[in-house]
C-alpha cells in the first residue's frame, strides 16, 4: 500500500510542478488569454460554475463506463467464442480485424442516424472503440496456453468448460487486463466523439460550446477534467488488475511477500 501512495504522490508532484512552470511561463511570456490562459485563470473559471462542470463530467463518466462495461463483457464473450470455434474465428474475427482498419471515428455520424441524439449512440461509439482491444488481447491471452498445461488437463479427462475456467481464463487474465487498460482510454475517446457529433451534454459538448464562444479558459477546464478523468479511470482498471492478479510476475513486488 505504501508504494501505491508513494506513486500517487509522485504523479501529483509532477503535475503540480508542470502547473507551476505553466503559470510562470504565462506570467513571463504573456500570450493572449484566448491562446493560452494561465492555470490560475482556468481554476477561477472552474470555481465560477463548479456544478456545471461536474454535471458534464458525470455525464461523460456514465457514457464512458457504460461503453467500457459493454465492450468488456461483449469482447470477452466474443474472444471465448473465437478461441473455441473455427467458424467464429473465420467469420467474426476476420470481420472485426477488417472493421478495425476503418477509422472508427468516421462511423460516428452513422450511429447518430441510427440511434438519434440521446445517450445511446455515444455509448455505442464508446463500445465500438473499446471493443477491439478487448477482443484482440483476450484472444491472444486465451490462446497463449502452455501446451503441456492443456495436456495435463486432457490426461485427467477435463471438460472443455473446466479447461476454460481453470486454465485458459486465469492464464489469460494478464493479457485481458492489458486490453482493458487500452479499452478504458478508447471508451473515453468514443464518449467525447459521440458528444462532439451530436450532443447536448457532457465534456465534449461543453468543449464544443465553449469553442463557439471563443471561451478558451472554459475549454481548458474541460480538458483538464478530461485528463483527470482519463487518469483516474486508468488507475481504477489497474487497481482491479492488482487485486485480481496477486500471483502475476508484474504484481509480485506489491504482494504481501514472504
Amino acid at each position, binding site marked *: 500500500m505504501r508504494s501505491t501512495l508513494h506513486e500517487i504522490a509522485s504523479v501529483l508532484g509532477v503535475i503540480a510542478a508542470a502547473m507551476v512552470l505553466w503559470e510562470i511561463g504565462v506570467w513571463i511570456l504573456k500570450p493572449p488569454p484566448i491562446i493560452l490562459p494561465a492555470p490560475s485563470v482556468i481554476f477561477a473559471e472552474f470555481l465560477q460554475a463548479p456544478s456545471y462542470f461536474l454535471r458534464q463530467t458525470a455525464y461523460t463518466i456514465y457514457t464512458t463506463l457504460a461503453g467500457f462495461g459493454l465492450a468488456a463483457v461483449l469482447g470477452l464473450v466474443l474472444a471465448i467464442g473465437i478461441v473455441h470455434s473455427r467458424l467464429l474465428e473465420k467469420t467474426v474475427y476476420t470481420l472485426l480485424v477488417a472493421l478495425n482498419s476503418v477509422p472508427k471515428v468516421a462511423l460516428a455520424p452513422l450511429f447518430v442516424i441510427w440511434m438519434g441524439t440521446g445517450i445511446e449512440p455515444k455509448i455505442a461509439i464508446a463500445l465500438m472503440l473499446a471493443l477491439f482491444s478487448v477482443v484482440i488481447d483476450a484472444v491472444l491471452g486465451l490462446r497463449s496456453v*502452455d501446451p*503441456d*498445461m492443456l*495436456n*495435463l*488437463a*486432457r*490426461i*485427467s*479427462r*477435463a471438460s472443455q468448460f*473446466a479447461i476454460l475456467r*481453470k*486454465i485458459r481464463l*486465469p*492464464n489469460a*487474465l494478464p493479457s485481458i487486463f492489458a486490453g482493458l487498460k487500452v479499452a478504458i482510454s478508447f471508451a473515453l475517446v468514443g464518449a467525447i466523439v459521440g458528444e462532439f457529433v451530436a450532443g447536448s451534454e457532457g465534456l465534449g459538448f461543453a468543449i464544443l460550446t465553449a469553442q463557439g464562444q471563443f471561451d478558451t479558459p472554459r475549454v481548458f477546464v474541460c480538458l483538464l477534467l478530461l485528463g483527470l478523468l482519463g487518469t483516474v479511470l486508468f488507475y481504477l482498471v489497474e487497481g482491479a488488475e492488482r487485486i485480481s*492478479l496477486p*500471483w*502475476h*510476475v508484474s504484481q*509480485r513486488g506489491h504482494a504481501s511477500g*514472504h
Partner: protein
Amino acid sequence: MRTALAPNPAISPATDPAMTTTEPAAASQMPGRATAPAYVSIEGVGKSYGSRHGAVHALAGIDLEVREGEFLSILGPSGCGKSTLLKCIGGLERVTKGSLAVRGQPLSGPPAKAGMVFQRDVLLDWRTILDNVLITAEFLGQSREALKPRALQLLQRFGLSGFENRHPWELSGGMRQRASICRALLCDPELLLMDEPFGALDAMTRDDLNLELARIWQDTRKTVVFVTHGIAEAIFLSDRVVMMDRNPGRIVEVMEIDLPRPRTLAMRETPEFGRYVAHIRHLFAGLGILKEG
C-alpha cells in the same frame, strides 16, 4: 519424511494410506514378473506428419508391451520420438499406423486412471501448491474435500509440509517438480507417464528425486513409463529399459535390468551397474549417437 506417516503394524507398507494400491508389494519379489499381463500393448505403431521438408516419421514399427506394475524407461537421443510415444500412450497424440491398447481396450483419447508428469512442472501460478495438487480431483470431477487429506499426505511424503499454501514461484525447481508428482498421484492412477521429469533439475536434486520415485514405486507398484535421456537414471529406476534411435523413431533394444530392490545410489558404483551402462553406451556409440574422442 515417510516416518511422519505413523506406521501401523496392522497394515503392510504397501497399504500405506497415502499410496493405496490394488496390488500387494510382495508381487515384486515374485520371480514371474515377466509374465505379468500387459497394461499397454503397442503393435506396429507409426506416427508421421507432413512438414515443409516432406513427411517426417516420428515413430515407425513400434512393438512394445508395458507390463502391469513394471517400471519401464524409454531412453534415446533427442528427436527419437520417445516423448511422442509417451504422448501416444497417454492418448494425447494420435498414431497414424498400428494399434495401441490399454488393458485390452483400443485407445481413443486419454486412458482412465492415468497420471502424467512433464519435464516442466506446469504448476499454475495462480494456485497454491495444495490447490495445484487438488486440480486433478477437479478435472476428474471428484470431491476436493474428500481428497484434501490425501493431498496433504502426499505433500508431506514428498517433503513439502509447510508449503501447502505457498505459490509455485516461491519454491525451488526440485520442490515444484515434487508438487507436480503429487498432483499426478492424487487420484491414485494405475498408469503413470513421466516425460523427462527430472531433465531440467540439477544433478543432486535429480538423484534425490530418483531415490524418492524408486521408493514410491516400490510401495505402490504403479505401471510407470518413464522417458529420459539419462542412462544412469534409466538403469537405476527401471525393470526394463527401451532404447530408441531416430530417423525414423524406432526401438533398437529392450533390456531387462536385474538389479535388486530397493535400489540405492551406492549401487551405481557396482560392477553390474557399470556393465549395464557400458552396454547401453556401446549400443548408442554403434548407432553413431555417442562419439568419443
